[in-house]
């Protein structure tokens, strides 16, 4: 009797300890965001107050309006959204087609080509960036969005997509296809009407992955884009820190606007997202 009593005390102490540890770490994760939101509403002279204020005494909404006057923020946003949209669409389309081909259509040297693709995935992006820059300069594509759209679709991101999709298609039983072939379906109908619907979880994972990677991409915009109106959010905001480095209230308003929509989307889709990451077991 006494032993079990001790046991349950220890267990509830353990639970309390777990909650305490988790709360502390979660707080460290969340506080920067709260501080960012708080600063975004502060008046410039109230940023440095003692003791620190989490809830400002007066809310200064003009900070948000000012951002649009100081930097072409609406353009950063628009560029990021439409580029991400095209890159995700393109990657999912091409990667699922190629992934299907690698999984199901036997052609000469298939495994060899696949191996080359996988090894190409290992090349650090920074190595090929320099020749790619020259290549894009030859084409006259510097300071346009074309490299930011085409390179992710047909570069390492695309190869990653092929790899993910191939893994999904391989697990689908062959009998399904054979039955459809007997019914007179061709490859493209099989791909479109049978394989794609079954591979939905794979497509969802790839969509989320590609979106997050592309939305956060920084290195490519940094080397390919010079004009302010053509910049994407990460690049635009990073350069903004240099120019008006001390105007933290404006900078924080801009980062709130850049982050909050993403957090809302994440909150709605978190279950699929976390499962998707765990399922593929792969990082960018």
């Amino acid at each position: 009797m006494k032993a079990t009593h001790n046991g349950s005390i220890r267990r509830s102490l353990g639970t309390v300890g777990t909650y305490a540890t988790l709360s502390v770490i979660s707080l460290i994760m969340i506080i920067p965001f709260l501080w960012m939101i708080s600063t975004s509403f502060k008046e410039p002279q109230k940023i440095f107050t003692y003791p620190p204020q989490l809830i400002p005494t007066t809310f200064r909404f003009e900070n948000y309006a000012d951002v649009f006057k100081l930097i072409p923020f609406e353009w950063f946003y628009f560029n990021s959204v439409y580029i991400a949209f095209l890159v995700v669409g393109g990657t999912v389309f091409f990667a699922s087609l190629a992934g299907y081909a690698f999984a199901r259509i036997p052609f000469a040297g298939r495994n060899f080509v696949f191996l080359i693709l996988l090894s190409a995935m290992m090349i650090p992006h920074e190595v090929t960036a320099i020749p790619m820059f020259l290549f894009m300069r030859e084409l006259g594509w510097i300071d346009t969005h074309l490299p930011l759209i085409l390179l992710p679709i047909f570069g390492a991101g695309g190869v990653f997509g092929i790899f993910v999709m191939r893994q999904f298609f391989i697990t689908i039983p062959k009998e399904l296809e054979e039955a459809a072939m007997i019914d007179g379906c061709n490859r493209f109908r099989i791909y479109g009407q049978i394989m794609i619907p079954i591979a939905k979880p794979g497509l969802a994972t790839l969509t989320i992955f590609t979106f997050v990677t592309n939305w956060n991409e920084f290195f490519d915009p940094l080397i390919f884009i010079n004009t302010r109106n053509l910049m994407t959010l990460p690049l635009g905001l990073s350069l903004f820190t240099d120019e008006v480095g001390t105007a933290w209230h404006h900078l924080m308003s801009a980062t709130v606007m850049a982050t909050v929509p993403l957090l809302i989307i994440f909150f709605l889709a978190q279950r699929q997202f976390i499962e998707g990451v765990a399922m593929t077991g792969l990082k960018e």
Partner: protein
Amino acid sequence: MVLGFTLLLLFPMGLALYMSFTDWPLLGDHKFIGLDNYQHILSDSLFWKVLTNTVYFTVGLVPLNIILALLLALLLSKNLRGIGLFRTAIFVPVMTSLIVWSIVWKYMFATDSGLINQLLMVFNIKGPAWLYDTDLAMPAVIVTSVLKNVGLNMVLFIAALQQVPRSLYEAATLDGAGKTKSFFNVTLPMITPTVFLTVVMTVIGSLKVFGQIFVMTQGGPSNSTKVLVYYIWEKAFKLFQLGYASSLAFVLFFVVLVLTLVQWQLRKRWVFNESDA
């Protein structure tokens, strides 16, 4: 299509290799100079500084990241009320743009208006100028980076922990193993493939650190946080020494390649495979 992929990945790779043997300015002709760039690297004192910084970052970040991620995964795989909330809190930075995260943390570390120093002031401590101190800047960047990415490894560990068969724990308990003992004798050996994967990926990711350095310190103060990719970027796209930058990039490539191969070999020694059992 496959040809396109190969061309877009392998052709630039070949060109990069050729460029690493040349003196290649942005404008004007390039000339072939053989191994001169690589010889120059060996005597480039800034290169050694940069390499040391990169190793410092990696050695500082990887153990912290893996241990924290594993600890969090162990806590979060318990069936507790409100666990989803904690998972979300820890995973949110993974979703946030690295640049935005770095900007916010640069602000947290700011000397006068940063929250960290304001909190220290409450305890009457005058906080240091974190990002302007040669000893503190790198640790600050490391902490920022660990918090940014720990959620990703955590999720992978949660997935791995869920796949450990319950029966093994029951057997361990019957043998009289306590919690600590069954963690080291059952849990850890069973999840070694995931530990291996996360370590390799995190090491490779750390060697390529760039965004947080660009935003938080620009490599400073006095080069104390200048890392390899930042140096490559500076040489190639600021100073337009494309040949020298290419040879630096190949040094990075070989480090990544060798590390991957070595770890692949070592894996056989310490990763538990079900087929070996």
